[in-house]
Each structure stands twice: as C-alpha cells, then as structure tokens.
C-alpha cells in the first residue's frame, strides 16, 4: 500500500517518516520507531495502556491514525525522564509508592497522570480516581497508583516553588 510522508515532534525530536494511511499511531510508535514503552491492551481505547500525550491532551494512540498526528507534538514515556536518566517526579513516585505491579499499564498511567497534574496540580483523591478512570490496571494496584500521583503532585509543586524562588 502506498505510503505517505508524515512529520511530527516526538519527545522533542523531529520525526519524518513514510507510513501507510491505515497505520495506527500506536503501531507506528512501536513497530516503526521502536518506542515500545506505550503498550497495547485492547485496541479499542478502553484500557489506556497506549496512552500518550498529544498536543496537550491524553490520547489513546490505538484509535488514531498516524497521519492524524501530522504536525503534532507528542510525548511518550520514553520522553519523561531527563536526558541524564533522572526520573521524572511521576516516575519516581510510581516506583517509590509501588504504583505498579506487572508494569504493563504503567507508561500509559504515568502519561495520563502527567496530563491530569498539568490540568489540576493539586487533585483530591476523588479527582485522581475519576481522572485516571480511563486507564485500567488489572493487577488493580489502584490504591498505590492514587498514592503515587498524590506524591508526585507534592514533588512537582515543590520543584516548581524551588524554580520560582530561584
């Protein structure tokens, strides 16, 4: 099938590739770019394992064609840690608060939590629970996921205050 050119920015890097129009964004990320951190759980946008951030929104990358992301700014789990490998506050919080078991949902969960905290830096428990209701964890580590996001919110607020002070 004929391929079309597509360009976007992923984790700050410009990407120019040829893709078939029928290629879903998650398959493009995983199979063509080898960004395998986002996972596939259902391909019907119910589980959230494939969640990425696209132009300021949490997007389930299994239900969007790659060509629809033309010109988009995308962030995936591979773009969360600093260049020197320092974990993002959310990654640190998920690790420290045991917000993961099998880890399969974790990249999508972290990307969703990141957008949630951009929109609402100090969410209540209930806001977190509803805010991540589109991301399934079948190990059902929900208690610790909420604890991790709350912890990250504190870390991120602290980092922001420090930045402002400097």
């Amino acid at each position, binding site marked *: *099938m004929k391929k079309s050119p597509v360009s976007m920015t992923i984790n700050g890097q410009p990407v120019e590739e040829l893709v*078939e129009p*029928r*290629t879903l964004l998650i*398959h493009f990320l*995983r*199979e063509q770019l080898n*960004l*395998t*951190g*986002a*996972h*596939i*759980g*259902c*391909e*019907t946008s*119910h*589980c959230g*394992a494939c969640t990425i951030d696209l132009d300021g929104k949490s997007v389930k990358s299994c239900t969007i064609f790659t060509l629809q992301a033309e010109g988009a700014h995308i962030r*995936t*789990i*591979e773009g*969360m*840690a600093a260049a020197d490998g320092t*974990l993002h506050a*959310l*990654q*640190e919080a*998920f*690790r*420290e608060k*045991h917000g*993961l*078991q*099998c*880890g*399969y*949902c*974790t*990249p999508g969960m*972290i990307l969703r939590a990141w957008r949630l905290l951009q929109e609402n830096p100090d969410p209540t428990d209930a806001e*977190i*629970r*509803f805010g*991540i*209701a*589109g*991301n*399934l*964890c*079948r*190990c*059902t*580590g*929900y*208690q*610790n*996921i*909420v604890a991790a996001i709350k912890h990250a919110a504190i870390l991120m607020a602290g980092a922001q205050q420090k930045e402002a002070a400097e």
Partner: protein
Amino acid sequence: MNIMNTAHVRHGSNIGQNLTRREGALKVTGAARYAADHHPAGMLYAVLAVSAVARGRVTALDVAAAKAHPGVVDVMTPQNAPKLAHHPDEKTNPFAFRLDILQDAQVRYANQPIAVVIGESLEAATEGAVLLAPAYQAEDVVVRFEDGEHFVPAAVGVGAPAEEGHGDVEAGLRNAAQRVDVTYDTPAHYHNALEPHAIVAEWQGERLIIDTPSQGMAIAQGRLAGLFGIAPEDIYIRSPYLGGGFGGKGLIAGPQVLGIMAAKLVGKPVKLVMRREQLYGPIGHRGVTRQHMRLGADTEGGLTAIDHHILTATSRFDDFFEPSAGVTHTLYATPALLTRYEGMRFDTGTPLFVRAPGEASGSVALEGAIDELAEACGMDPLAFRLKNYAETEPLTGKPFTSKALRACYAQGAARFGWAKRPLAARMMTDAQGLLTGWGVGTATFPAHMFQASARAEIRSDGSGVVEIGAHDMGQGAWTALAQIAADGLSLDMDKLTFRIGTSDLPDAGIAGGSAHTATAGSAIHNATGAAIAALADIAMRDETSPLFGAGNAGVVSRDGHLYRRDDESRGESYATILSRAGLDSVEGRGEGAADQAVTENYAGHAHGAVFAEVKVDPELGQVRVTRLVGAFAAGRVINPRMVESQYLGGMIWGVSFALHEEAIMDRRTGRPVNGNLADYHVPVNADIPSVEAILIDEQDSLINALGIKGVGEIGITGTAGAIVNAIWHATGIRVRSMPVTLDKLLF
C-alpha cells in the same frame, strides 16, 4: 561436608524489608521489554483468523484473496500447517490440555483460530485475515445449564475427587433447628490480563527461541518439545516480565504455538499478538457454576451439616471442572459434610485456571450461605463464624500447620468498626439517603508447594549469584526471591546477581497456586545453604583458616563472612577463603518441594477476614463498595509492600467478582456477547474506594523452612461474599447470582 554444623543465619537485612520493586525503574521508563516489544531482524507479523461460529466446520477460506493482498507473505491453514510430532489432542500428562492449532477444519468454540496470515506488516496481515472471508457449516450449540445433560465427572480441577465428605448430611439437616437451602450462580470469567498473549518466535535450525509471557517456562518447554519433536533444551524461552498472568499464562496456549508454527512455515522470525476480543476463547476461562448449598444449624448456632453441590461446565472436547468445593472442605467445623459435582459440556473453549480457581467461586456461595444461616439463627455473622471455627481441617480432621484466623477476625473487625453493626438488614442510611450495609466473609487459600530447583554461587570477589527460572507476572518475584537469595548467602542485595525469567535457568516450577514464593524461595534457601556449606567445608579443612577444625562447633555466615559459632571473633570473609583456596567460586544447588511428612499429617492454609461496606441507591439499585478492610495471615512475609499489593489487588478482584465481571454467551450462536473491555466490566479506579489490608503476624514452623504460605489469590476469597452479604444488610435482598447488577436489586 558437614551441613548440619553450618548454620544459615538470616540477619534480617533483606527478608521482611519493605524494599521497592527492583525492576521498578525499568517499568516506569518503558524500558522493561515485554514479549511483544521484541523485533528481531527480518521479523514478519502473524495475525490470527478466528471462528465466528462456536461449533461446526470451516468449509471455505479465500486463501487466494488473502495472498493477493500486497504485503501478505503466506497463509497457514490446516492444509499447509507444519506437521506436529503428535496430535495436540493427545493427553500426554494431566497438564496437557487440548489445543486448536489447525489440525483440521473442525470448530469447537467461538474465536478458535482457523488460519494464520503472515505479512510484512501488521496491517497487511490483518487485512489478509479479513479477506479470508471464511464460510462455515454451523451446528447447534449448548452454552447454558438448561440445554444439555448433566453427568458426574470422573475428577474435578486437576485430579481431585468429585465427591468427598464425612458424616450423615441428611440426618444433620433433618435434625437442624435452622436450615438454608439456596442456590448461588457464578458466571464465566476471562483473565483479561492487560497484556494479551503474545509471542515472538524464531527458529535457528532445530533450535527455537521465543519471547512469550509464561507462568511456567519448564512446562511450556515440555509441551512444545512434545509437539515439535525436539528436545526441551533446544527451546529457549525468555519471559522476564509478564503484563499480568492470573493463571492465563500458566500453560502455553494454542495461539502461541501457532506463532511458532508460522515462524517454521515462513522460515523467518514471526510476531503474533492476540487481539483483546480473540482472548475470549482459546486461552481458558473461569468455568460457570451453579452451587446448591444446604446447611443446617442447631439451636446454639452450631453447624449440623453442609451439603455443597456444584454444577459446572467444561468444554465439549476436554475436561476441566471448576473445583469450587475446596473452601467448604477447610473452613467451617461441621459434623456432616458432603461436596459433590455434576458437569456439563458447553461449546466453549476449555475452562482453566483463573486467579483462585475454585476457591473464588466456591467462596462466594459458601460465605453467602453461611451468612444466610447466621441470619436464620438470629446471630451476628461474625459471631456465627467464630462459633463454627474449625480447630482442625473439617474434611480430613488434620491439624493446621498454623492458623491465625481468630486474629484476622479480631483485628479486621476492630479496624472496620464491626461492633457497631446493627443485626437486622436495612437499618442504616447515610446522609445522602443511600442504604448502607456491612458484611463479612472469611478468606482462605491452600498453601501449595510444587517442585523447584535453584543454583547459588559465591565468588572470590565476595559477591554472589543466584539463578532460578522463576516468573514475575507482577507479584514481585524479582524482588522477594532476591531478598531470600541475599539472606541465604548472607550478602547485601547490591552484592547479589540475581537471574530469573529465562528457561535456561533451573526449573522454578509454575508461578501459580500462590505457591511460587514458597516453592522457588525454598529452592533458593536450600541452594544458598548448600553454597555456604561448601564454602565452610573449604575453610574448615584449611589449616591456615581461623575456622580450621570448627567442624564440631560449626560456623555461621553473616555479612559476607563465616564465623565460628563458639567464638565469633574468629572468622574471615568469603573472598579470603576462596582466594586462599585458589578458587574462583563455590556452588550450591537446592530443591524446593513440600515436606511429604508435613502434608500427610497437617493441613496448610492461609486465612483472612474481609469486611465490606456498601451503599445502595434505594431507587436505582446502584451499588458502590465504599470501604473494604481485609486482615490476612499467610505465614512469613518476605516483602510487606509486595504482599500488601497482592492482598489489595486480590480484594479488588473480589469487588469485580461481586459487582462487575460476567462473560455472557449468546445461547443461539455460542459467541461471547461482551468479549471486549467495554462490555466485559472490570473495575477502574473510580469504582474503588478505600481498601485496606492488614498483615497479621503468623509463624509457621511446619509449612516449609522459610515459613511461607501464599498471598496471590486469597484476597478474592471472602471479599465477594462479604460484599454480597453487605448488600443484603443494606437492602434486605439476598442476591445469589453474580455479579450483583442493579436489575437484581430493583425493589
């Protein structure tokens, strides 16, 4: 070598510590590679075509159309599928369940694979599978208890008797002051691990390399070796991370074998990933049950009899009967006990192990019926359970290796505030006018052990290596087993190289039955003990060692050193001992298995008590669990953080059992009606309120050397019953058909 005189000191630096997950950083960065993340050079994509009918034959496949699609490399059908060394229906051992891997055109259940399309891209192969446009000759199906004949199965579960008990149940019921006679229905459940079954298979001549999630690599090796007529050693499985297992990855499933066959057919590496909807068929499920409970109690509330009759369905072509009676055998003291089964054959895939197979479904019926009997006796349901507390295992009369259930009841009840519970139903409403109810359920799960081997090594630089082909499906084997290994070698974790997750390591047995930490942990304990003993033997025979001649007094290991037990000022480091002996390393091997003398004479079970609060909308019947407190006793806790997570996750599976999960099969076509994550409901975060797990201290010196029981499955048991009982307490309605959806509560 004098092992007896070499003590194995656990100094507590590792076991019992709340360590974070060792592979956590890999998982939060997306760097942990699951099976489907692999992409060897030259890899092709394989896509399953699955049956749209549940019984019959495939009469036509448009292979030409599929092959004509650009990018399609080949189509595998029964005509060209690689020949197998034996028929996949051959029952070569009790764990060899029949597979559908293109042996013929017959269809035995919906979503059975009927062809595999291999393409240069996933998209091409997917389109090719659609173009096959299969035609079928369909036959009538049976997927309901009402539609077929019942029979008494020869065995249930894997080889358990279909009828067990003692005493005169009919007399016990006849003479009872209070009786209940009720039927509980539980539906089929699918594992729905978030990671679908996936395989990347590559043949290197006669050698097979596969990345696939597995809870039992050695069993998979054996099964594949038999099917392909090669040696198990020539099969190399990598399974370092599973995206959840829940029993669904215990045995290699047909689609995984098809990925291997596809790779053989095209002579290239192949990736095959199942789609979510394809999982509702060929990988097993929790069998549907209808459980008839007859219980009697005397005027004091003491049980006089329990009769637990289970009707359950297997597939038309293989036998696995959901063994729901296990909890009834072990939980409540009764002078007369009878458990018996009837089976049916449905046109579905064969049911198999789903987290707490048997215990989960049996528990909800038993806990519900016990609650109903407590109500009939006018007793508090917790007091009723304590009244019928089993001091010995009810079925066998054996003493328990340990049983801290009373402490679970007491601490759970205290934390929950159970004492304030009104006895009658429908007595509590909250500020919003929601009916509020409190319920309790007893949790229990057997402390199984399988067979495992491990290898330990102490190196001349003072470091250690422990290797075991263990599986981490999320429960924390990378961490908890490493803690046991580090303590076994008396080393800090950072001095330990710990390897699991590949099939070239010693067989760790299956990660199932909540037995992995106990079994693999025991093997590690013995292997590390043997390595220490071998090292001590070298030192004690060396005249220049401060440990020379310590034979009778013995030596102890601590922090990378051996010391004389009778004079701990005399000792030396592992590195010194090995360097002087001119050795690079010393090795120990060990096995893990149940102590037969213990299993013959004692009953080993973990226990717990779960307390639930629900709120029910009186007009809409909508139920929410608002509070859950579980208290569990399961022997020694290796890592409280991991154990707590297992309890919480298990309890949430219990919420799911009570309120959400149900696979609905269309009675006309036999197809799953809700085979996707939109319609097959599992809890999301917003469904889950406060959940708390209390870890009750329990020392068990009999169950195994480490005192470990299992924690992976017990959380489901007790919980679903507690919720159903709380719904009664809120509403006055006993719902006996799972899940409790709002239509069943319209009052």
